[in-house]
């Protein structure tokens, strides 16, 4: 057996032994563990699963040992992910710290910042939120206006951030702020880490069409932030922000592939809700065709993800393929959600109550929630702009 095959087999048996059965069921939003100072486990099994993964250091397998990871290579980390997906293991910890901030700190953070924040993220002690968007700065993020002025060894912040997911539950926020109003818009921005307990911060939750209240408007009124919390150079935050956005987009392009988060898979849903003939085929040819289209699109997206990994390992290929993944992945995920609701017919219209099963309600809310995928993290239109400019060399539009 090759080294990777051995690793795969070991990983698989460890997961089989250590992941409680309940943690191998499809997960609903209420069952996710997000960590943090005030975080509570949704169940005893969720706690056991998280703690075992934390001790194994597989919450962030590719992070260095010193920061709570297992120091594994990209391929081994991928294998763990693969095996978790195959076994249906839930993510033990949901965390913007893992997905976005951590990788950016590993690249740009000072030693003191890495020591303070990375282990806290890896061990689920700190919950982070992202303060990029503002009421006047969405797709055109670089036009942001939240001001940070230097006052001795502190920054003093004034302004507001919007669409800040989970700001009401987060311990820390990473923020883009304007430190030099005179400079060109990308050049006057800095990247700051801010304790949400700081005096002067207020948070107002906003309700979503899915009924969840995932995001907030966050106000800063003379908030004092130590200068040591500046990541990267002063006025040099845009580079950090862009690197972080890359991780965010990669994450979002993989959402449809994380099958453990589904109420039902699309095929399972079809078999439950659509008439099938004697051989188990979906009888309605149009629905069957829609489902096949979806499954084939996911298949092709999966192959493309694999190709990107292989090409980057072999230093081959154009390096431009990754630009299409956020667009393709999120648009297809929206289609999948609509397809499932359509297959459920009037059972796919339930909002709450006993007349609908849990998975039915989750599917409806999932469909509504999925609308955000092609907006957040750079909208589909922005992704197409980026492809046109960077991959195709077409003259820039704003």
């Amino acid at each position, binding site marked *: 057996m090759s080294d990777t095959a051995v690793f795969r087999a070991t990983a698989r048996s460890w997961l089989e032994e250590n992941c409680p059965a309940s943690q191998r069921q499809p997960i609903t939003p209420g069952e996710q563990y997000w960590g943090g100072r005030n975080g509570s486990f949704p169940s005893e099994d969720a706690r056991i699963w998280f703690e075992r993964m934390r001790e194994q250091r597989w919450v962030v397998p590719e992070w260095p040992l010193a920061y709570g990871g297992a120091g594994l290579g990209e391929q081994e980390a991928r294998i763990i992910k693969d095996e978790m997906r195959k076994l249906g293991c839930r993510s033990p910890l949901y965390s913007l710290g893992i997905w976005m901030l951590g990788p950016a700190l590993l690249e740009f953070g000072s030693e003191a910042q890495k020591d303070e924040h990375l282990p806290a993220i890896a061990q689920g002690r700190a919950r982070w939120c992202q303060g990029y968007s503002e009421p006047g700065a969405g797709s055109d993020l670089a036009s942001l206006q939240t001001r940070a002025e230097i006052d001795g060894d502190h920054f003093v912040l004034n302004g507001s951030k919007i669409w800040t997911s989970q700001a009401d539950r987060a311990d820390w926020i990473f923020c883009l702020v304007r430190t030099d109003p005179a400079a060109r818009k990308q050049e006057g921005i800095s990247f700051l880490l801010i304790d949400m307990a700081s005096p002067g911060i207020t948070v107002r939750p906003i309700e979503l069409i899915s009924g969840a209240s995932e995001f907030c408007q966050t106000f800063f009124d003379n908030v004092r932030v130590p200068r040591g919390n500046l990541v990267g150079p002063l006025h040099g935050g845009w580079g950090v922000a862009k690197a972080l956005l890359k991780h965010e987009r990669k994450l979002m392009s993989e959402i449809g592939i994380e099958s453990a988060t589904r109420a039902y898979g699309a095929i399972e849903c079809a078999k439950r809700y659509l008439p099938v003939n004697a051989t188990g085929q979906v009888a309605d040819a149009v629905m069957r*065709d829609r489902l096949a289209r979806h499954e084939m699109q996911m298949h092709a997206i999966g192959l493309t993800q694999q190709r990107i990994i292989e090409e980057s390992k072999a230093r081959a290929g154009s390096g431009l393929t990754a630009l299409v993944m956020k667009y393709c992945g999120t648009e297809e995920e929206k289609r999948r959600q609509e397809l499932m609701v359509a297959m459920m017919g009037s059972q796919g219209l339930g909002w709450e109550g006993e007349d609908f099963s849990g998975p039915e309600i989750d599917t409806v809310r999932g469909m509504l929630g999925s609308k955000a995928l092609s907006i957040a993290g750079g909208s589909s239109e922005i992704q197409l702009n980026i492809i046109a400019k960077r991959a*195709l060399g*077409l003259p820039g539009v704003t």
Partner: protein
Amino acid sequence: MSLVPTDEQRQLADTAREFLREYAPVTALRQLRETHDPLGYSMDLWSRMAELGWAGITIPEQYGGLDFGFAGTGLLMQECGRTLAASPLFASCVLGAGAIALAGSDAQKQKLLPLVATGELRLALALEETHRHDPAGVGIAATRSARGWELSGVKQFVIDGHSAEQLVVVARTGGAPGEQGGLSLFLVDAGAPGLERHRLALLDSRNAARLEFRSVHVDDAMRLGEAGEAWPALQQVLDRGRAALAAEMLGGAEECFERTLAYLKQREQFGAVIGSFQALQHRAAQMFAELELLRSAVRAACDAVEASPSMLPLLASLVKARANDCAELLTNEAVQLHGGIGTTDELDIGLFLKRARVCMQLLGDSAFHRARYASLRGF
């Protein structure tokens, strides 16, 4: 699975691209069309291709081939798609030789494959009987005769059927049309008494023929594999054909796209290059995304031929459906984004569109392959 070409494979593709640019540019197809070339491809080109080893690219060394692997075939087909190069590569080497390699006896392989590998022997696969792709629907009967078998019936849409020296004919020796069991493969000499061949004039100016068999005698020695048991080998041959065809379609779509992109950067209206209009940029970006997904699927399907044959049926249907849809989108968009000139015969884009339409029907349209994919996945 490997989705990245090796250095050796990349070299093959580069050489092929240079060679085709010199010996089989799009103007060569125009010339075949203008002169109503009876063959539909240039024998001179074919012998040059054979000299480079292309005719035997996937044939094992013991039978005189290069044994380069199917990924090599895919890359050659892709490059041929870029210049619309007409040759027997697909019909003879992928389908014909594939059928012999997968179904034939060792003696048959010894005798025939080396001749295919040198380009001397050209083959064609006679499968379809109606205007829709339907491999299990084969109805023409091969009946036992005192001296072997007798074939009667009509075959349609046989690629290179009028020019091949030998035909691999799918016929029924048992069962009923629609059933997978009961199919057999026979090698039939093109000059056999009772066989009439009629070349069809298709929009792509390439080759397809209708073949009429009237009590054509076939020796039992010319049967490939067990009588009535051809389905598994036939499936594999067709799946290889689908993967190869998808590679050709990828090449054609890439070429169309690159030409269109160049036009977007050059043509000016309203005082600006039209490629600065966002409506067009987004359409170009969407095409780019389609091409990227198709590229992955083509690599995966070609790789699966040798590396994971059990995955081939699913990947072949995936890739053929994608290639069909992608080719339709890209050729149509290419015409549209060129404006008026896009609708003229002078511009090559129309030739790509025409070739794409033939490829889209060959070995299954998208509806066929989505239904097959669904069945293979159990829904």
